[in-house]
């Protein structure tokens, strides 16, 4: 088995330290950072994504693999930057104002990062002003608005409206999610996408940035 295949397998196992050590070894052996990413880490995380989508593995398995991937990417990040490699796109995400629930949003961030996106995580209790500031600063491809509560889901609509009023709506795609959120709600407030879980969110965002 080549070292790149071994890296894939370690990602699939969710072996954080093992993946990092193997990536460091690959760097020492002179294997290019882009190859490590594209032929080692990505095949592993893609396999995990497929297994998760087929309900073959549990969330903690996915998270361990994602963590193994993300820590290893940090190892090769300086080399990737030096080689001119860029993330496939940028996402700004947060939990909307009035809502402190961040578990779903954190899962989305982790899975988006594992899909090759740069993720700017604004945190929780985020109002329109902070989203607008982040859109202007980071020029993301997509933004994500998470709300767990029926009492806070209205805030998603307010943020979209504020972004429209600021004239930034056409620059980004807006994704919404959270327990009470549905496709009908997304349609009503003018979001571009509703995804039911973190894996779907990462898939939708990746698909959009790759094909836009």
């Amino acid at each position: 088995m080549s070292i790149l295949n071994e890296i894939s397998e370690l990602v699939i196992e969710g072996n954080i330290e093992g993946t990092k050590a193997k990536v460091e070894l690959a760097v020492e052996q002179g294997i290019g950072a882009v190859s490590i990413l594209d032929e080692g880490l990505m095949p592993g995380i893609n396999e995990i994504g497929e297994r998760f989508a087929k309900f073959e593995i549990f969330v903690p398995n996915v998270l361990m693999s994602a963590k193994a991937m993300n820590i290893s990417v940090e190892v090769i990040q300086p080399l990737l930057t030096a080689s001119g490699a860029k993330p496939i796109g940028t996402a700004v995400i947060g939990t909307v104002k009035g809502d402190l629930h961040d578990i779903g949003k954190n899962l989305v961030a982790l899975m988006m990062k594992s899909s090759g996106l740069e993720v700017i995580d604004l945190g929780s209790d985020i109002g329109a002003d902070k989203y607008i500031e982040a859109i202007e600063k980071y020029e993301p491809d997509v933004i994500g608005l998470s709300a767990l509560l029926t009492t806070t889901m209205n805030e998603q609509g307010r943020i979209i409206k504020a972004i429209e009023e600021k004239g930034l709506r056409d620059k980004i795609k807006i994704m919404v999610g959270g327990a009470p959120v549905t496709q009908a709600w997304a349609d009503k407030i003018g979001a571009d996408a509703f995804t039911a879980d973190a894996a779907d969110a990462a898939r939708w965002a990746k698909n959009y940035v790759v094909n836009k």
Partner: protein
Amino acid sequence: MKSRIKYDVMTKDELNHMKSRMEELLIKRGIHLDHDEMLTELSELGCIVDMETKQLKFTKELIDKAVASVPKEFTLYSPSGKRDLKFPHPEGKFYVRTNTGAPNYMTVDGETHFTKISEVNEWYHIANQMENVDYFTLPSTSGEEVPGDAVDVYTLERALNLAEKHIWLQPYEGENVKYLIDMAAASVGGLDKLRERPIVSFIACSVSCLNYKRMDAEILYRCAKAGLPVQPCSLPTAGANTPVTAQGTAFMAASEVFAMIVMLQLLSPGLPVIATTLLFSMDMMTTYTLQSNTEITMARLICMQLFEQGYNIRAHSYGTGTDSLAIDEQNMIERTSLIHSMAMSDASVLGGAGQLETAKTISPIQLIIDNEIFGIAQRLRAGLEINDDYLGWNEIMDGVDTNPGFIMSDHTMKHFEESHRPDMFNRGGLSKWEENGSKTLQESAVEKYHKLIKNPATYSLDPEKSAAVKEVLKKAHKALVKEQ
């Protein structure tokens, strides 16, 4: 009739361990409370407060003082005066409430959409007629027909006009709380009268672990100041924001609710409170939040025993509900399995009547069916008393079975109406069932719905008070609605 059958899921040692750890948690780790006025007052009352980080810790003395001031008996009043709720229930029963927090409404025709204000009218009209449903929540009306900034005040206006039973209120914004209180006060002739006979109580929720955001802290603070009952609530999700184990989630939910009760009692000693732990779990494969996980049902039993037995504080949790999106077999298995366990718990209140889809949808048809289910559950809670009268000892010894037979005996005449008889269930055999159209339970519930909906209203608010409520609504609209 007193409650006779109880599931004690914890041993005495386990119960004491939970109590001890819960108090230790509040003393050593403390809570995060986003409310400066409340932090200041609680600091003056002896809590250890860091105003900068908004962290608050309790002392053992304060906890004991607070627990001692929780009223052991109190009444939640009804707008009609016909369904006042005395705690503890004089007959050992539990009280039943409708579901809260569902944004969706499934119509009698099975269509599901965001709840409309017109459907709130229908909901209360049906719920008023449910004899086994004791109090109501506010349906989570969507912002399609009423302003999104003020859906709670608009929905309460409907509730105060139409609901004959006690109302449990979920505010949607911190600044709305004042208007909700003013509106309830207007419906009874003033704040003093509302305090004397509270026809509303409030929900305030924690965010696990041990966080209290501004809006919910405001609810606690305002209710403490106004002397209005609170059913402080924790809605953790096992494996997501609380430990994956049912025990760990029960522990955290109970601790968060307990902290709210301690704060309320320190701010307003003697305030009626009901510890409300509404537990969920995350499905570790789909990440979907579940209500009907079996272990979580047992976690609810832990919470009920902890508060009722451990502190003599009235406790409240889900009694029915499902993760199913339809009125199907999964739905019925989950909700009847849940209620049979919870009916045997120490709970004083069981909720969720009418809900589907993990509490995200309400359905009048499901409400009508739940009314039957709760009737059965209350009968189970009552248990069976053993004495010679109930044994039929005298008639057995007198040989009544041979003449005239039990069907006409005095003992039968005395007791035959005591059995619970669900009125929509098939009790007549195949030929009668076919003769009556071979209806399923759901079809019978639809039929019952059409009868109930035609009945005249059982309650409406006095026109003068209704006008006063409307005035508060106008003020609230002006103050709260950002886009006039």
